């Protein structure tokens, strides 16, 4: 990906505000993420990292402010936005009757990939789910389900990748793999926004850190 593409603004967040009842979770958040750039939301538990991510992907509606993806106002039902934004947050569901490999095959085909076999195999290999390829999602361990969730983001075209604590339930090797994979994605011009408590991962992808909430007193 060239330098011009890397300068392109993929995500713009302006004056984002979100409150639950009388409790304001986040207020006045401005954020710009360029192609090839990784931004990490950090902060203590309850600081609003997941809330911000949910607003960014359209799962939650901000009380004020705006979110734009590639210049288009965020509307999570817009097919163009869905085509551009890959998400790994906690609301991912699976078809109970489709195996691991069938999920990835279906997703790749839905995104218009004609012969997805090689890509699906490669991603399965990367997330170390080859032995579980024909298993149904309910029989996977929580770590394996996490890997499958990550895999769904890598078998499809994407311009922005949003992840909520992707290191969760991954072992040390898994975190190392994820760091390497995300570094490659960044080099290819992907914009990444993630919430994470894993310094090794943030270091691996050279993430710009945005700290949310008051520091612990």
């Amino acid at each position, binding site marked *: 990906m060239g330098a011009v593409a890397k300068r392109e603004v993929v995500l713009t967040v302006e004056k984002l505000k979100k409150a639950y009842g009388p409790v304001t979770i986040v207020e006045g958040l401005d954020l710009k993420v360029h192609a090839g750039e990784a931004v990490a939301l950090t902060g203590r538990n309850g600081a609003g990292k997941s809330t911000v991510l949910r607003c960014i992907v359209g799962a939650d509606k901000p009380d004020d402010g705006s979110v734009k993806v590639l210049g288009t106002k965020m509307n999570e039902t817009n097919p163009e936005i869905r085509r551009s934004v890959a*998400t790994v947050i906690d609301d991912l569901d699976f*078809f109970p*009757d489709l195996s691991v490999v*069938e999920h990835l095959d*279906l997703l790749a085909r839905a995104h218009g990939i004609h012969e997805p076999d090689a890509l699906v195999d490669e991603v399965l290999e990367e997330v170390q789910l080859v032995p579980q390829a*024909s298993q149904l999602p309910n*029989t996977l361990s929580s770590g394996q389900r996490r890997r499958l969730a990550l895999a769904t983001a890598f078998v499809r075209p994407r311009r922005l990748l949003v992840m909520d604590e992707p290191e969760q339930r991954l072992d040390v090797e898994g975190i190392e793999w994820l760091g390497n994979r995300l570094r490659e994605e960044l080099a290819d011009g992907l914009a990444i926004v993630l919430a994470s408590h894993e310094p090794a991962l943030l270091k691996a992808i050279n993430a710009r850190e945005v700290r949310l909430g008051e520091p612990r007193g």
Partner: protein
Amino acid sequence: MSATDEKFGEVGQADEKQLKLLMRDWRHGRADRNILQALQDAYVMVFGVVLIGAMLISSIIQAQQSVSGCETDSCLAARGLLPWAAVAAVLAFTLVASRMFGPIVASAAEGFWLMDAAVDRRKLLRGRLVASLAVAFFAGALFSALIATLTGSTLTHIGIWALAGGLGAFGLTAFAAAEQGLERHWITSTLQWIVGLAAVATLLALVGIAAGWLPVAGLEQLSVEFAYIVAGAGLVLGLVSMVVAHHRLRNIRRQRLTAGSSLIAGMQGAAFALDFALVRDILVEHKAKQKGHVRATRGAGQGTTALIMRDVQRLWRNPMPLVVWLGSMVVPYAVQALGISQLNPPISALVLMAALIPFMNSLRVLTRTKGLQRSFPFSPAQIKTAVIVVPAVLALIWGVATTPAFLGALGGEQLDVIAGITAALITAIAGLLAAIRWMSAKPADYGGPIVAIGVGAMPPGMLFSMLRGIDMVALVTLPIVFGLPAWVSLLIAAIAFAILRSGFDKDQMMEQQEEQRRLLEEEKARKQGRSTGNTTKIKVQRSQKR
């Protein structure tokens, strides 16, 4: 009896009865009101149940008196065969439920705390065995008696059918319990298929008699004699199996006992919320977990075609719903044969709804949470359209295959060709829309306002959860039942489809309204030359790039 342990000293033998009494004491100690007080608090509900129950019983008796006078071949066939079909269905359902839940279950807490103790599990589980057998007997008898009553059978025959259903269910539950002790499933599965096929065959025979293809002579008497055989066989099987099951109680694995209980607990939770789609989700997940893995197949097509082709592949992977769908085609013929052709559209549409629901797993998963839906590059309407293609084709085939029934070609009221085809089409559309509604309707919103009732409070949407699907059937088919022109039903169906496809999202509409209001205020403020920009303090802290 006691033993000496190095660490604990003298250790006595645990007494199962004492353990159970101890638990009962704890439970009673924690109760804050007795059953009478609970009933007093819920007097409105109790009154309602009694009132509705009385109305139902009165309607059933009226129907029995009205139908018992009918002596046509169709009525005689129905009287002779429908109770048998009902008993066969009861027996098949008994086997399915027994295999799925246990039939003997223990809660996770009992599994963890009690089963771990050095006690004889037979003494702990004996009560469970008896309870499951009693439930099977009474439920089987009640349902069989109800169907026999509705077909106009005499009181004696109703009693015989009740015994057949009750004792048959008792026998099969006891047999399943005995098999549970061996952890063996294939015999109960085979029996379940045989009995289920017998139920469908009986319905087919009913249609055959109504059409004049099969003789009706002596059917009622033969049918009742068959009921005696079922009752007798059920009793013998039940008694023998009960002894065997009791003997094997000691060997049932703890996991096998608690799995059924956790399934029941999950389903109970969903059922109390009247979210029957969630009850089904739990069953589907449970089945998938038991299956574990599948032979992976390569998908086909791109874009929304990939979703459609996956649904087609599902038909081959799991053909059982297809068998049920095929069986459901008998229903309009059977209803017509019973001489209640006026009610054929709503009754058959409800059956079609139930038959189409298993083909809508994709719709369910893609509408219950947004996460997976968001992964696909389509709008919600595009996704919904794609995942209802296969059920819609099945509904259309069903409509074509059942058109002769609505025409009255095999008995019952005769309609002209246009009216018959229209009735079949409207029924198929109603069944399809009802299934879509049942699978994709949002659950009750517990975050919104709630309504006070006698036993606490409930969100208003909870009441409508019970009517999911049924409302669509009523909306689309009742106009033709009441003799209104067919275009009224078709127009209602078109509007309903448009709403179901686009997803009537109240929250989203309110958000859009709010957004428009905000933009208007900003525009006003801009014209007045002042900014509405948020000037509140920014709480975000930033650190330098690593």
